[in-house]
């Protein structure tokens, strides 16, 4: 029985010509090893074209003396060695001083904005955990700022911040009487707070969304057990909620930081090409240097410095938080 079976099997196996076997196995291997790379290729090429090439060009330009005189043929612009960088970080000279000012404004703005976004988002998410009537509706409403196109939303804020007919002055001054005269929000020192308000309004729903997702993963039993052991609400938040949210928060804060630090749309739509000094965020500052005053070389050098700074901060942050996580586990 078995012999016939074994005798039959090879007959079946050899029915395709034996010579074909080798190449097929080889194409199989090529396919197995090469296919992922092949599939990655379009993305890789696009990444190269969209991100890497402009970045390399930007770095090259940062070493060139590129102004309107050479913009037509930027390859021919004279090399300036480290001059653009020297000008950018010479904090006693006008360009460096302005860059430092704008950097400090951006730091203050980012810290406040990310902090407030996180605080409001987390508070809202914790609050929305309990089921109550209208929770779904409220949750949807919370996400409106996140869903609106940035331009439309910020332009609406521009109208509200208007000195003469704006809603903000109408409420603060006419209705509540909190100020003795209407204030300017889009020019002068108040512009910082106008910018912060819009940024927080725009950013907190994202924090809310992420924290809410994080909360869903905390087992209810933990709270029940804690309650049985006599832990109050605050203790539950401190001992269960916040530690459990840690990994979520780590990513959330990093992403919010990078987005806020680099935010261009909000200040640009609020203030136009030249922002008031108090709200001169670094992204607009670099845009101004490059495309308004046409110092493309210096603008590129500033961009490279900014990139280095963000890499440093992100790297440091990741190293710090992952060490904390390792220790915790």
């Amino acid at each position: 029985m078995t012999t016939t079976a074994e005798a039959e099997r090879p007959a079946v196996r050899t029915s395709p010509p034996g010579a074909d076997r080798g190449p097929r196995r080889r194409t199989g291997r090529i396919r197995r090893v090469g296919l992922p790379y092949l599939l990655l290729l379009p993305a890789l090429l696009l990444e190269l074209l969209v991100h890497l090439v402009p970045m390399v060009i930007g770095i090259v330009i940062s070493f060139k003396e590129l102004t309107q005189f050479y913009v037509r043929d930027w390859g021919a612009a004279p090399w300036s060695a480290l001059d653009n960088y020297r000008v950018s970080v010479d904090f006693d000279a006008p360009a460096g001083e302005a860059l430092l000012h704008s950097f400090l404004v951006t730091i203050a703005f980012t810290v406040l904005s990310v902090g407030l976004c996180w605080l409001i988002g987390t508070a809202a998410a914790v609050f929305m955990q309990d089921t109550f009537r209208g929770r779904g509706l409220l949750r949807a409403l919370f996400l409106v700022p996140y869903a609106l196109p940035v331009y439309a939303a910020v332009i609406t804020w521009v109208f509200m911040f208007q000195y003469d007919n704006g809603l903000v002055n109408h409420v603060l001054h006419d209705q509540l009487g909190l100020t003795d005269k209407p204030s300017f929000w889009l020019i002068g020192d108040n512009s910082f707070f106008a910018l912060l308000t819009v940024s927080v309004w725009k950013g907190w729903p994202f924090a809310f969304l992420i924290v809410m997702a994080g909360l869903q993963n905390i087992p209810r039993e933990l709270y029940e057990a804690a309650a049985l052991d006599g832990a109050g609400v605050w203790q539950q938040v401190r001992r269960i909620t916040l530690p459990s949210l840690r990994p979520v928060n780590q990513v959330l804060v990093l992403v919010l930081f990078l987005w806020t630090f680099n935010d261009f749309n909000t200040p640009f739509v609020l203030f136009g090409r030249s922002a008031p000094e108090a709200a001169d965020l670094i992204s607009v500052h670099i845009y101004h240097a490059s495309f308004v005053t046409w110092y493309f070389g210096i603008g590129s050098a500033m961009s490279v410095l900014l990139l280095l700074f963000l890499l440093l901060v992100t790297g440091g942050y990741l190293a710090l938080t992952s060490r904390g996580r390792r220790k915790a586990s």
Partner: protein
Amino acid sequence: MRSNRAAAAGAVTLSLALAATACGGGSATGGGSNDSPKTLTYWASNQGASIEVDKKVLQPELAKFEKQTGIKVKLEVVPWSDLLNRILTATTSGQGPDVLNVGNTWSASLQATGALLPWDAKNFDKIGGRDRFVDSALGSTGAEGEDPAAVPLYSMAYALYYNKKMFADAGISQPPATWDELVADGKKLSKDGKWALGMEGSNPSENIHHAFVFAKQHGADFFTADGKADFTGDGTVAAVKQYVDLMATNKVIAPGNAEYAQNQSVSDFAKGKTAMLLWQSASANLESQGMSKDDYGIAPVPVRSGTPGTGKQVNSMVAGINLAVFKNTDNLDGAAEFVKFMTSDAEQKILNKAYSTIPPVKSAQADAAFATPANGVLKDTLAKSAVALPQVADESQFETAVGTAIKGLFADAAAGDPVTTGSVKAALQKAQQQMPAA
């Protein structure tokens, strides 16, 4: 293996970067050709109340041109806020239009990029000669001593628009001719929530146009004779202070105007919220906002004493639009043909009437349509008392730097913070440091 891959990636990146450079380089050496003689691309600046209005004005004329020459013109109307950057991008990439509008104050800045076709005698001959154009308009077509980088298309000048009824109600019989008179009249007009004068404090270009005229009236200039930035002379400081003081100390401008940059002051004037407006070619705009021609009068912009004229009596910049040709056009002959068409007497009359501007072409200017009292003031100003903004390569940076400094000073004035000679000087000093080679 890994280093190989990295090297390969590096090589690809490098070759792409080089290719990109080569593209840029290719356009630079391309001196124009006649490779596609049947088409042209034209970027028109937004002149009318909207882009649609412009298309309605221009499209029939372009059709006429196509009928005459067989050349099809592809029109794109570009908003002002985008125009300079669009031109710069086109310059960098070499992928621009064949013919385009440039604000005449940018002529020298754009000339410096080397992207625009120079209008030498030979090129001018193709469109009927240089003599056809008004001198003051030719004065803002490029740096002095060089062939113009563009040809004048529409001319404009600032004038004082005033609301006749508000003047009559305040017992004022005629528009102010000097700044002292304007301030005195302004005190009578600024009451009951209405204000004497409107302006655009957050618009750097508007600021610079006025500051330039005030400086001229103080006998000062923002640039030295050899083209170096010089913003902090006593005359320029006094001029900028006088301008900002209209809000800060004279209080004839509403503080809210410090925030304006979207022509809100034109709307305020049309609605009767302000009695006066310093503007160029506002008629079409005012009428589209429901103000009848009889409601307002037009007078020359005030001077410090006497009547407008030359020297210290200058009361306007030479404003206007120029027509330029990109050097690397694929239709050199067609582009010249198109410029000839647009600057022909017939077209000059049609287009300048549509935009309530003045033709920079002498023979077209003589048309009866440009002899109305309103146009009379503009024509007179252009002929006698207007000066072109400095035609230096850094002009566009100058507009931004000084215009933005003045925006900051208006913000101070609006907030009630003092605007002193010292604070004006400090702001201008900072602006000067932003200029190239400061």
